[in-house]
């Protein structure tokens, strides 16, 4: 088992390396660089090519690509993300608070979603083709169909106009002031949680339907077990795995993909930071963010695999 874990962790390295190469090249293909973004965008009357060249040199952007990549990699090797090209401050510092925020939203949304999705999905599967099933399906498909930025906007407006309530302006970490923190994050968590829940419910329903048709469920019924026991002990454990996958994939996605929701709810999360970093052509920050999200994605994947092995003995010993 330990060997398996080690192997899996090692297998992440080439993928991460691929991600690194991809983002590195991609950024260089995008027109413009951080110097242009800094000096050409403010509508000022004076421009100085000399200054821009100087800045490029300072940032090492005049170096050949392989050298730039090499120094980035050697930094990464030492777990040193370097400095942001835009603000010149350490990237870890840039990311810290935003990561905490995004992570918390992702955790809250997935908690809400999971708690709702599993019972709803089971219910719909067990009552297939009844009105309950239809209601759950319409609810979940509507969740997939509602743009979260629209839903979020409606939520904000409802609070503003009906309750005259405005969310706190800045993100307060949970440990500083739980109340402010929750007051700010619960809404975005709900707005994305709905869609998320819809994804989970659908998956739960369809895998449950599949599992309920399996031979071993028939065996369990032939043994005279109670329906509840069949569902919880025999079916759920088998059906939960794919649900786990989509839930965790969605979770990994939420971490860096909440751009629109963050925009609507005025959250300074990783998603907005992505947009900012790219629009500033802040290569180092964008690269670090991509690596962070990719690593997180792979780790979530890995955790899911471990969970699979834990839930499914067929995979356990390998």
């Amino acid at each position: 088992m330990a060997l398996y874990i080690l192997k899996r962790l090692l297998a992440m390295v080439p993928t991460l390396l691929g991600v690194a190469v991809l983002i590195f090249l991609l950024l260089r293909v995008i027109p413009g660089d951080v110097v242009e973004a800094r000096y050409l965008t403010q509508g000022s009357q004076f421009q100085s090519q000399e200054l821009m060249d100087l800045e490029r040199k300072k940032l090492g952007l005049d170096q050949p690509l392989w050298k730039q990549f090499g120094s980035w990699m050697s930094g990464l090797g030492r777990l040193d993300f370097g400095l942001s090209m835009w603000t010149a401050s350490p990237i870890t510092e840039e990311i810290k608070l935003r990561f905490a925020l995004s992570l918390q939203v992702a955790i809250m949304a997935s908690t809400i979603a999971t708690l709702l999705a599993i019972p709803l999905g089971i219910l719909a599967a067990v009552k297939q083709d009844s009105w309950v099933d239809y209601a759950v399906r319409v609810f979940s498909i509507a969740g997939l169909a509602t743009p979260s930025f629209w839903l979020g906007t409606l939520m904000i407006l409802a609070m503003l106009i009906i309750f005259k309530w405005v969310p706190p302006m800045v993100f307060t970490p949970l440990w500083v002031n739980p109340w402010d923190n929750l007051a700010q994050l619960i809404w975005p968590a709900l707005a994305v949680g709905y869609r998320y829940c819809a994804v989970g419910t659908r998956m739960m329903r369809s895998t449950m339907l599949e599992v309920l048709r399996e031979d071993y469920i028939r065996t369990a019924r032939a043994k005279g077990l109670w329906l509840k026991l069949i569902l919880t002990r025999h079916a759920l454990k088998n059906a939960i795995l794919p649900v786990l996958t989509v839930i965790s994939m969605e979770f990994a996605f939420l971490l860096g993909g909440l751009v629109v929701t963050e925009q609507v709810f005025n959250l300074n999360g990783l998603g907005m930071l992505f947009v900012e970093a790219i629009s500033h052509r802040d290569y180092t920050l964008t690269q670090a963010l991509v690596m962070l999200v990719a690593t997180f994605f792979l780790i979530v994947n890995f955790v899911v695999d471990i969970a699979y092995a834990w839930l499914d003995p067929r995979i356990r010993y390998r």
Partner: protein
Amino acid sequence: QSPRYGGELVFPVPSEPPSYDGHREETFGLIHPIAPFYNTLLRVDPNDKSGTKPAPSLAESWSVSQDGKTYTFQLHRGVKFHDGSEMTSKDVKASYDKIIFPPPGVGSTRKGQYVVVESVEAPEPYTVVFRLKHPSGSFIASLLSPYNFIYKADILAKDPHWYETHIMGTGPFTFVEHVKGSHVVGKKNPNYWDKGKPYLDGFRAVFMRDTAAQVAAVRGERAQIQFRGFTPVARNDLEKALGNKITVQESPWDCILLVAINHKKKPFDDPRVRRALTLALDRYEGSKALSRIAIVKEVAGVQVPGTPFATPPDELAKLAGYWRDPEKSRAEARRLLKEAGVPEGFSFTFMNRGIPMPYEPLGVWMIDQWRKVGLNVTQRVIEPAAYFGSLRKGEHEVAMDFQCGYIVEPDLDMYKFLSSSRNPANYGYYEDPVLDQLYDKQSQATNPEERKKIIREFEKRVLDEQAHYLMTLQWHRIIPHSSRLHGWTITPSHYLNNTLDTVWLSP
């Protein structure tokens, strides 16, 4: 009403400062949260709505020599940096040397603005002397720049980049913290040299990208003001929701979207076609309609309406595209197009920048206007950061351009239109020596009336005869703020008047 002490001013800032070095950056994102920590040599009078009146700051007074080439400044005594050391002429010299004569390897954004300066000297601890190469009518205006923070000489000597990542000034507030992605906090500087100020206990600049959230913050009274400006819609909503708890200050805004017509692309090399483009715009109707939904309002020439050198409306109305009769104007546009051999329904691409306000509404408006003279325009929107890079490549046909200043001053405002050999930011890519001559002539004109005349000539050539560039509508700055906020006056620039020393909050 006499000022009241105390209270924390909270204001959203739509973007976060890239670094803390004012000499290097050029964004309100730096001014709004960072300016309160510093002083400049001179500043624009905080009570002057036109934003053009010089006022003392670190310099108590100044004098100009007869030949207009030597400026001598007397510094305030007893000014202390936040670290307790005293600020002297040495620091002013070091700061301006960094701006004008940066050491090798250190860049300066504004070097180009001070080419006229020959040297900066500090003959005595409280005297600074600027020597110019030749007299300049706009030199004092250039010292009003809100970016020219006075740094400490010792620090600069050790590390010219230190101020990019640190804050240490003489300003009315001292730096407390900057949480990345969240906010900057400043607290009252008890040893501020301008006795009795500041009134506030501190301020909190909160970074909020989303306009709606900024409006909501003011509306929910979590913030008292946003210094950049809100849309007319937001103003109306706020007034409706908050009634007399909100005060609105408005001013023309020293920013404008221009349209660069690439002279290197056919048929835009033909002045008739360019004139048709400007004739097609009904600016007066546009002003009425767009001022309801966008941050633009006045119909303007090359100077912000209402400022000393601006062309009066009636005279402006004589320029092509400013005629009061839109039908006549459009008919002329069609005629010119036909004459130039541009077919009906001719289509071209209009390049716009991917920023919603006010680029998008102006784009929509212009495309609609051009449609009315039989031009079929598709809009190509480029991501903001790549935008000017692509303008510099000159691949566009017609493109939105942008200019914004911290002070209304013809030298600064009209630089944009100089031949591309003189101005790399000329995205029309034309050479017009006549125009360049006119520019230089007005710059050296000492008599304001004469200067006005030359500017008028310049304006007619650039906007009408040659239609090198066309101007859209002047931006319009709208600041609805809490009625509790006092001691702050709107100016045409969102870079100005942000030291916050005069601002106070009533209960």
